[in-house]
């Protein structure tokens, strides 16, 4: 069948069958068509709806995924409101030190940082809601700004992964030969090492020296490092898929029609890898945010005076015995964010069901 499966009007019914379906493997394969009651068409298969619309329909039925999507949007909005909170509620910037100041808690003036250097715990008032750090900075403000940083790094890194991972996968899979021989060893080398170790080594080094015009403490550096590290994690599966797709009849048909390699790649092969790419977007976002936290925890990610959830947990862990909220509150924000992305990602994967083996580690 020399038809591009994504474009053909009628899809192979089996391609959408779900494992839980009783009818799978039997010969009742004529299911999953839209029901239209019309005297002339009853009993016949109506035109199958497109795979993307079908996936969207399934996603809309997945209430858990929708709830977590709502949670994720809420978390993002809260973090984006950081400047508002800083200006109008806490009245202090994220990097403003206040070692000698005091704060009114329940009518009592208390030191923000005690003489022995221990910062104040949560006050649950507008100022220093979650307490302060050793420099007297407002942790609630830093939490929101830190969340903004974490999310931004995640987003930039994901963009890098998706763009370059797809590109590398397409090129090595389609051209093989020389391109493959040049790019693959790099991918294998990156892939052989745990992302945390690789990221920490590169992160520490670049934090010291910067990268070209970018300063060492820019948040673009961890974003760039995380992006590069995870490129093979998308590039490898895409390459595998392209290797499979390029042998299929609809690609041969395009070749016979005289299409050039670039057009075949963009208009024939790329659309067929789209579902894999879509599945990887939330997954890579979750992993990028997690890896940022690991790097920042180990001092190789976001550099002072900026904060991120990772640096806040790292700073807070010193006080885990006395004031656990210092580490656990940014920790909870981080986990909720990653969890909601993962649940939504699962929902998307179930809706698309590309049956691809996905393998990622932190």
């Amino acid at each position, binding site marked *: 069948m020399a038809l591009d499966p994504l474009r053909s009007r009628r899809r192979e019914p089996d391609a959408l069958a779900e494992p839980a379906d009783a009818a799978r493997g039997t010969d009742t394969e004529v299911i999953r068509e839209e029901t239209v009651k019309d005297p002339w068409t009853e*009993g016949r298969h109506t035109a199958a709806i497109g795979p993307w619309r079908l996936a969207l329909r399934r996603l809309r039925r997945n209430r858990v995924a929708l709830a977590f999507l709502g949670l994720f949007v809420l978390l993002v909005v809260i973090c984006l409101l950081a400047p508002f909170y800083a200006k109008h509620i806490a009245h202090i910037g994220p990097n403003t030190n206040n070692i000698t100041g005091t704060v009114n808690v329940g009518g009592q003036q208390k030191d923000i940082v005690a003489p022995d250097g221990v910062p104040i715990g949560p006050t649950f008032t507008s100022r220093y809601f979650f307490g302060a750090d050793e420099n007297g900075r407002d942790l609630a403000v830093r939490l929101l700004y830190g969340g903004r940083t974490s999310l931004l790094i995640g987003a930039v890194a994901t963009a890098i992964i998706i763009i370059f991972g797809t590109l590398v996968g397409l090129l090595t899979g389609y051209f093989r030969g020389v391109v493959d021989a040049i790019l693959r060893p790099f991918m294998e080398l990156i892939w052989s090492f745990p992302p945390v170790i690789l990221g920490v080594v590169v992160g520490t080094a670049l934090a010291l020296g910067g990268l070209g015009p970018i300063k060492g403490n820019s948040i673009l550096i961890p974003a760039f490092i995380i992006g590069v590290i995870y490129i093979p994690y998308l590039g490898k599966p895409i390459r595998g898929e392209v290797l499979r797709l390029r042998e299929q009849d609809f690609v041969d048909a395009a070749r016979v029609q005289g299409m050039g390699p670039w057009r075949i790649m963009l208009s024939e092969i790329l659309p067929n890898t789209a579902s894999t790419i879509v599945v990887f977007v939330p997954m890579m976002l979750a992993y990028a945010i997690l890896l940022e936290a690991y790097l920042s925890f180990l001092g190789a990610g976001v550099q002072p005076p900026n904060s991120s959830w990772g640096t806040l947990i790292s700073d807070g862990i010193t006080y885990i015995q006395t004031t656990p909220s210092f580490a656990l509150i940014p920790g909870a924000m981080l986990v909720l964010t990653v969890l909601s992305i993962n649940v939504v990602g699962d929902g998307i994967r179930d809706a698309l069901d590309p049956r691809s083996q996905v393998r990622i580690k932190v």
Partner: protein
Amino acid sequence: MAERLLDVEHLQVTFATEDGMVRAVDDVSFTLDRGEVVAIVGESGSGKSVTVMTLMGLTRSPNSRFGGTARLGGDRDLIAASEEQLEGIRGQEIAMIFQDPISSLSPVHRIGDQIVEQIRAHEKISKAAALDRTVDLMERVGIPRARDRARAYPHEFSGGMRQRAMIAMALSLSPSVLIADEPTTALDVTIQAQILQEVAQLSKESNSGVIFVTHDLGVVADIADRVLVMYAGRVVEQGTLDEIFYDPQHPYTWGLLGSVTRMDREPPRRLPAIPGQPPSLVNTPQGCHFRPRCPHAFDRCTEVPPLEARVQDAPDHLDRCWLSVEEKRARRLVDGRIGLATGSVTA
């Protein structure tokens, strides 16, 4: 009268799917006697495989519902049986040969071990004794050097040899009922005939009853005693081989017969086919399921025709068509042969 092995009455199988309830098998009844070969014929989606797999309890799942009974040996109902009861029956009393021998054997276990596993699941005998019996069985189904070949893995066998191994496995405990679900569909044409003969001969030797599922009426002519023609979950016609072949009553059967190419006749200019496609089981046509594809449909066809005997002196020849027997006999002739007239198809 021969011993009754299986008595299926009003079997219904419904699957819950994302798009609604699918009635895969709708009120199917038939019997199987010792030494008899019953063929179930139909296109894919007709419910023939679901019917036989339901008899073995292989369609059970949280998404399936069953109705009716299927009594084995006159007493035990296979539909109501517990999973444990079925485990004792499967392989021992009812065995099955599947369509695709390539995917139906475990890729990581040796052929011999897979047969031994079945024998030892039902009989308390030593591994060595089970292996001896396995080698005998493999020789009987025509696998050369069986002692060595028992140690091979499925990927080292050809398609025909794999299907022979499946047959050996199915016959290993001399089941009284043998179900063959399109056993030759995945094989080369040259091997098909051999396999068919073997199934027929071996079942005659062991005097078991055979349910033979196929979409190919040509195959049926060689081995079947009685035939059930299924369409969209329902039996549309059933009778003896001669009744179905020489006096078919349902237009769908005419179409099937018309599309069989025969060596002993002049080949037709165009290969006849039944126009249209089988209906969606979610959105089944009102009345006769074949109505939208039937050139002979008339207003009464929006009522479901009952499956009953309509031909005189043929009480076991049943069909579901409202046309009178005379009309049928006249209309089924196309160019002097049985077939489904083309043209004038509604929609």
